[in-house]
């Protein structure tokens, strides 16, 4: 039994088919990236998972079964539409929202104390939410998601409006939670963060699964027949190399079909150049994302 099992869900709104056919599982204690271009159906899929929308077809199992009030308390959700009560002090707002999750007042206060300190918001606890900066409100949203110590976190664009220091802080917190066995679904357009944090991903486009699985395996699958090289001096002309192109400060060597990277490495090592870097060229998630979505658009 996985914390989330989504099987062939579909959801339409009038004539608009927001989700056509999406299936995936999220394993306990993993950080799962839910990716897709704008309008791909990510938010609708999340809302279906959380029982805000009922699917037109398909099944969703949360902690092994349908959603219940008890299960809602085990989930922390930070939606795409940011929402906190603007006209009340931060502390009161967070305690109220925690009370709706069934957290006893004393425990909520104790948890909140730690989070406010950790996120550098302790001195702002009595300020009205609307008086906080965007970055502070974003951190307050994250605290709200974590305050009731959920087992499953669904978090949409957690890094928006954060400076590098706070971005690292949020990444650290999410990493710690994963290490403690908390399951995290993260939806974001920041591919670099997904590459850094997520174990597995699902890429949705036009309401359908496009890519799904282990992130490293997906990247390997998309790696071309090429290597990245940094070298002192001019590269020798080798029969095994089809084309040399610059690539982010490196040289990308596209190999002939019957050649292996090991053979090229041997040839380069035998030449007179000073080889500083040699690695198999694996595309970034960003490149894979663009490639897959563009392929989808041209179909």
């Amino acid at each position, binding site marked *: 039994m996985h914390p989330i099992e989504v099987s062939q869900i579909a959801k339409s709104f009038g004539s608009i088919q*927001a989700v056509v056919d999406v299936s995936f599982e999220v394993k306990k204690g993993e950080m799962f990236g839910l990716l897709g271009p704008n309008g791909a159906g990510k938010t609708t899929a999340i809302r279906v998972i959380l029982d805000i929308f*009922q699917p037109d077809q398909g099944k969703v199992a949360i902690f092994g079964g349908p959603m219940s009030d008890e299960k809602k308390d085990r989930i922390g959700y930070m939606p795409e*539409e940011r929402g906190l*009560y603007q006209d009340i002090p931060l502390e009161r707002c967070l305690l109220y*929202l925690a009370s709706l*999750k069934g957290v006893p007042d004393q425990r909520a206060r104790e948890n909140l104390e730690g989070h406010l300190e950790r996120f550098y918001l302790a001195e702002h606890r009595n300020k009205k939410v609307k008086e906080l900066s965007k970055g502070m409100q974003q951190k307050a949203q994250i605290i709200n998601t974590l305050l009731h110590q959920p087992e499953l976190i669904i978090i949409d664009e957690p890094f928006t409006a954060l400076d590098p220091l706070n971005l690292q802080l949020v990444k650290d917190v999410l990493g710690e939670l994963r290490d403690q066995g908390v399951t995290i679904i993260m939806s974001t357009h920041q591919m670099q963060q997904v590459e850094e944090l997520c174990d597995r991903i699902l890429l949705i486009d036009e309401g359908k699964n496009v890519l799904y699985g282990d992130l490293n395996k997906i990247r390997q699958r998309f790696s071309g027949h090429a290597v990245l090289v940094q070298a002192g001096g001019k590269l020798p002309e080798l029969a095994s190399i089809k084309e040399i192109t610059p690539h982010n400060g490196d040289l990308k060597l596209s190999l002939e079909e019957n050649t292996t990277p090991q053979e090229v490495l041997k040839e380069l090592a035998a030449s007179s150049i000073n080889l500083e870097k040699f690695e198999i060229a694996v595309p970034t998630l960003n490149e894979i994302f663009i490639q897959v979505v563009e392929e989808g658009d041209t179909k």
Partner: protein
Amino acid sequence: MKRVLSVARYEYRRNVFKKSFLLTLLSIPLMVALGLGVGLLLVSLENNDRSVGYLDQAGIFENPIPPPLSKGEEPVDFIPFQTEEEAMASLEAEEIQAYYLLPADYFETQRIEIVYTEKPGENANRQWWDFLQINLLSDQPTEIAYRSASGADVTVRSLDGKRSIADSGPAFGNLMPLFINMAFMGLILMSSGFLMGAVAEEKENRTMEIVVTSISPLQLIGGKLLGILAIALTLLVSWSLIVLLGIFAARTMGIGWFQDLGMDWGVILATGAIAAPAYVLVSALMIAIGTMVTTTQEGQSFSSLFIILHLIPLYIAFAFIEKPDSSLAIALSILPFTSLMSTAMRNLFFSVPNWQIALSVGVQTVCAIGAIWLASRAFRLGMLRYGQRLRWRSLFQNQGAGERGRNP
């Protein structure tokens, strides 16, 4: 239930601990006090307690009997003068406000002269005529003289003898159901802002999506409704305390109408029993409307509609006076919106049967429960439709799959 109470407590604190609420709380009693104050001021300006003189050349006041007084009324002194010069000197010295001259041929002519520099007070004038009347009857036994001077005293009673209104007008207690109606309408007007705001706040702050992943829409709506009911109760209790203080002050000051309140607790209880679910009904509908419309202003226009519906019985008041047990009167006493005012008005002239009150409470309660369901359904459908209107028809479509509609 704990979470419902949590929502209710939040809603209560959000609205009550504000300066604007204090203004709301005090506005109605202040307006009433201002109205009463202006009225009392006008009356006091019309009255003049200074003495009044008279010259009795007709021999009516040989052994003067004082005039009968209304409850709480201050007596005006009537001073006899032997000559007109003495009376005039006293008038000019402002010892008296006027003097009456009863000529020797009064019984033939029935003419009296009055001399004044400024128009005398209404109370002085009224007491003078009572004074004259009772002394003209001085040859009669005192009781008969006073009774005659008091004039007709008609008490209107209902056929079953359970309702009566004295000649002096209905007692405070008779009008109590109507006061409850006024308070009810005041509450609707006052709380419409709270009710609309309760939903609008969630939409405007984009908190809907977080809240509904913690509690169900029904729990959220129930909690909000409970919180606003508590606010309404706070207003009612505060207003009632202020009214009680006012009554106490009026009784202490000896104002006649408040001496015998004539409270009929059975009628008051029945009115309250209908008012409670009727208020829940209107409140729940207002929350539903707040969820469906796009702006708070648009929603508030609906509160006027509820007031108009509530006032329908007033427009056909003659029908209630003429026949308070007619089919129309019974129907309006049971139907939602018109029930409270109809029952209150009928109770003025007629003892409304208990079965009709019980049926009315039942109908209001069922409608209130239905309205709560409707509100939670409207909320579930409209909660994520920022800036979009929800249609009534869609509330009753796709039973059990309430989220279908346009993508928010």
